[in-house]
């Protein structure tokens, strides 16, 4: 069991995984409360275009993903605010266009040896030390921002109109939340992969909401569930030679099923 810790790539993957297991469901809780759960999926697909741009320009692909995903996040929010297109349409547009840009760019520069599959589905062997530093630094920024703005973000997520009537700067808070979602996507890209990040932001929240009684409990349970899913997924992927991203998301799904079933078992009085 302990031999997993003798490999430095596994230690990097575990550290990155712990960061992802905390921040993805944390952000996911606010997105679900805001009925905006699908944005993580759309941004994840856009981040793949950023990876491709990073590769083409010879930059760290994660930095390329960070810049492009943040830019796309603001454009999506602008479209949503302007109401010229509905939120679902904006998300669908970016979801498919992001992947299209990635595929075309990688095809154009086929001389570059890039393992796009590892960004699509995640890979525990590809987390470099510089990736790990980027992931941990961004995770700290996300946690600190949520720590400071927890109540304001929660109020805006639950009822934007009332929050605005109460004097909160909801436009700015929405931009902060979407920025955090973009950063979370990039943080998760290496381990979970662009096609599976959406599930890690939503499934732990769905599991937590089956058993939680308050919003605060939902946040805590979702983070616990996300952490458990990442750790179970990473260990099983190591010992059973499975794709890490898929194993993590399936673990989250299993935890949701357990929460769903146990919450429906009548308690004895």
């Amino acid at each position, binding site marked *: 069991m302990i031999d997993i810790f003798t490999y430095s790539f596994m230690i990097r993957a575990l550290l990155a995984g712990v960061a992802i297991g905390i921040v993805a469901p944390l952000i996911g809780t606010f997105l679900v409360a805001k009925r905006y759960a699908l944005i993580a999926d759309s941004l994840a697909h856009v981040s793949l275009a950023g990876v491709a741009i990073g590769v083409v320009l010879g930059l760290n692909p994660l930095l390329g993903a960070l810049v492009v995903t943040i830019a796309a996040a603001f454009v999506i929010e602008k479209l949503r605010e302007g109401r010229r297109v509905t939120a679902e349409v904006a998300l669908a547009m970016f979801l498919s266009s992001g992947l299209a840009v990635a595929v075309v760019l990688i095809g154009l520069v086929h001389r570059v040896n890039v393992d796009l599959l590892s960004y699509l589905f995640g890979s525990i062997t590809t987390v470099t030390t510089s990736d790990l530093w980027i992931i941990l630094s961004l995770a700290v920024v996300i946690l600190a921002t949520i720590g400071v703005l927890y109540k304001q973000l929660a109020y805006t997520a639950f009822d934007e109109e*009332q929050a605005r009537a*109460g*004097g909160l700067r909801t436009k700015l808070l929405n931009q902060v939340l979407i920025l955090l979602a973009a950063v979370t996507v990039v943080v998760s890209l290496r381990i979970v992969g662009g096609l599976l990040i959406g599930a890690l932001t939503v499934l732990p929240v769905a599991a937590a909401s089956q058993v939680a009684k*308050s*919003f605060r409990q939902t946040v805590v349970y979702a983070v616990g569930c996300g952490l458990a899913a990442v750790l179970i997924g990473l260990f099983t992927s190591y010992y059973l030679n499975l794709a890490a991203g898929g194993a993590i998301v399936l673990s989250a799904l299993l935890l949701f099923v357990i929460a769903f079933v146990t919450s429906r078992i009548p308690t004895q009085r």
Partner: protein
Amino acid sequence: MQQPIIQFQDVSFAYQREAVLARVNLAIAAGEYVGVIGPNGGGKTTLIKLLLGLLAPQQGRVLVWGEEVQTFRSRHKIGYVPQRAGSSDFRLPVTVGEIVGFGALGVPAAEQSVAQALAYVDMAHLASRPLAELSGGQQQKVFIAKALASQPEVLVLDEPTVGVDVRAQDEFYQLIADLNKTKGLTIIMVSHDIDVVVNEVSKLVCINEELVYHGRPKDFIEKDYLAKLYGKTRRFILHGH
């Protein structure tokens, strides 16, 4: 009339090209209990949204305590209970205490303010209960507590009794009257329930794109403004309280 705390000066508003409010002039003084009535689509909710700064007038000015509402910083002075607050459909669990706590954001001694607001509506014992487990009437009280937690001077309610059963409605109107009389809150209540409103409020505002009537409920009934507003005759039952 004392110095008004809320003023609509020649306010017009249209959604795209469809005019909803046209040249509305209105003044509300501190301590008044104002009922806002009018037909569906007549501009009641738009009036409230302009008052809350959620919409900006295309023409005219909305002033609160003498300042333009759009730039007014002490928004906590206006508490707001929105339409259908008593049938909330939140995606995630949230407790009574958490909802009321949102109202106290930025208020000094927020915890104390939440506790007092919950006690006022007799819901302190339910602070840790999930909101979804409460009835429509109880949820409505929670949203009043949330509005009170911001320590407001004005309470704005938009169709507050929709989805609330008749018994809870009576209790609700008593609570609002008490807030007006004992706490001195200025109340502005939009309602479709004209019979109840004319019996409860001290001043009536009737909106049908334009300001049709602004004055005492008694004069409204005697001068048969209802026919002007709805184009039909109607009888009122005055309860005399």
